[in-house]
C-alpha cells in the first residue's frame, strides 16, 4: 500500500502531447485529426498539445464510437450536442440558483 498522496490535475491545468492523448483516449490518429478538423476538439496550442478537458472529450468520443458505432463526423456531431447540453445545463443551474425558496 502506498502512503503517498497523488495530485489530481484540473481540466485546464496541464497539457498533454498528442501521443498521450491518443493512448489515454483510445482514439486513432486519423479520428483525432478529423475531430480537430471538424472543430470538435481543439489543440491547446499551435503544436499539437491538448488540455485534460480535451482528453475528457476525446474519451467521450471514443465511448460513443464504441457503443454506438459512430464515425468521426458522427462523433463530432454528438460532441457538439453534448457540449451544448452541458452549456444549457450550466445556464439552467445558474438561473435556478437565483430562484427564491429552494430546498437545500
Amino acid at each position: 500500500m502506498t502512503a503517498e498522496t497523488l495530485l489530481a490535475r484540473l481540466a485546464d491545468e496541464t497539457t498533454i502531447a498528442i501521443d498521450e492523448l491518443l493512448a489515454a483516449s483510445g482514439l486513432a490518429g486519423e479520428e483525432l485529426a478529423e475531430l480537430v478538423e471538424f472543430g470538435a476538439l481543439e489543440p491547446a496550442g499551435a503544436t499539437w498539445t491538448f488540455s485534460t478537458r480535451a482528453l475528457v472529450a476525446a474519451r467521450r468520443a471514443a465511448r460513443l464510437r464504441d457503443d454506438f458505432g459512430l464515425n468521426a463526423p458522427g462523433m463530432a456531431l454528438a460532441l457538439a450536442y453534448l457540449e451544448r447540453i452541458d452549456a444549457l445545463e450550466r445556464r439552467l443551474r445558474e438561473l435556478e440558483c437565483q430562484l427564491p425558496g429552494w430546498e437545500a
Partner: protein
Amino acid sequence: MKYKDYYATLGVPRDAAADDIKKSYRKLARKYHPDVSKERDAEERFKEVQVAYDTLSDPEKRAAYDQLGQHRPGEDFRPPPGWERQFRFEQGNLDDFDLADLFEHFGGGGFRSQGARRGGTGGFAMPGQDYEVTAHLTLEELHRGAEVSLDVAAPERTPRGTIQRAPRTVRIRVPKGATDGERLRVAGRGGPGVGSGPAGDLYLNIALRPHPRYRTSGHDLYLELPVTPWEAVLGAEIEVPTLDGRVKVAVRPGSRAGQKLRLAGKGLPKPREGHGDLYCVLQVVTPAVLSDRERQLYEELGRLSGFNPRGHLE
C-alpha cells in the same frame, strides 16, 4: 460464482442471432448510455448491459458462456469440469471472480478499460485499466482544497500472469479550483499495464454535496438573503455569512426582491488565481403573524401611501 443471465439483461432469447443481439444492445445503449441518458441509475444499468454485450457479441465468449448452462440469476454455480481449460482461461482459482471479471480476461487477453481503450492493440502489450472514481466533497472542502482517500478495488494482473482483485487505498489531493462535476485526471495511476503496455489513468469525478446555505454555479456561490419590507424600502446594513467568515453588505434603499448583491471574490477559488463571486439574492419576506400594533402601522401606511405599483396595468 453467482450466475448472471446475460440474455435477459439484453432482452433477447438464448438463440438470438448476432445481429439481434447487436440491435438490442444499441437500443439499450441509447437508453442508458451515461453520455446520453439522464436516468438516475443509467450508469449502473449500462455497465450491466455492456458486460453482457461484451460476452455475447464475441462468438467464443458466447460459446463459453452458453456452456455454463442456464441458472437462476444470482444462483451460486460452478462451471462444468474442464470448462476453464476448454476455453483457455488462465487463472487458476475461479472462486475469486464474478462472471464479468472472468469474461473480461477471457483467453488470457488484457483488460478492457472502461470505455477508452477498447479495440486496443491485442498481443501482449496492453495498456492498464482506467479507473474512474467519484469523490463526494463538501463546499468547504472544495473551498480550501481537500485530500480524499478512495478505495479502488480492481482486478490486477500479478507478475505470474494470474489475475487477482487488489484493493488499494489511494490518497488524492484535489487542488483548489475544482468545481462540481469536474473530471480530474491522475496520469498513470490506473491499473498496471500488461507487458510493455503503459499503466491506465485514474479519473476522479468531483461531486459536490448539497450545502444548506449556498447553491453553486461553477465557481460562483448564491445565497438567498431574506430581508424585511422596511429593510428593502429604507435600506440596511446586513451581516451575511461567507466561506471566509461574516461580512457586512449594504442593502440599498428601494431594493427589490430578486436583486443580486455581488460580493466579489467570495466564491470558490479558481484554478490559477482569483475567486468566483458570492451573490446574495434578495428575498423580501413578510411576517406571517402580526401584532395589533404592527397591523395598525401597516393599515396606516396603506392609507397614507400614494404608491401605485399597478399604474401600467390600468
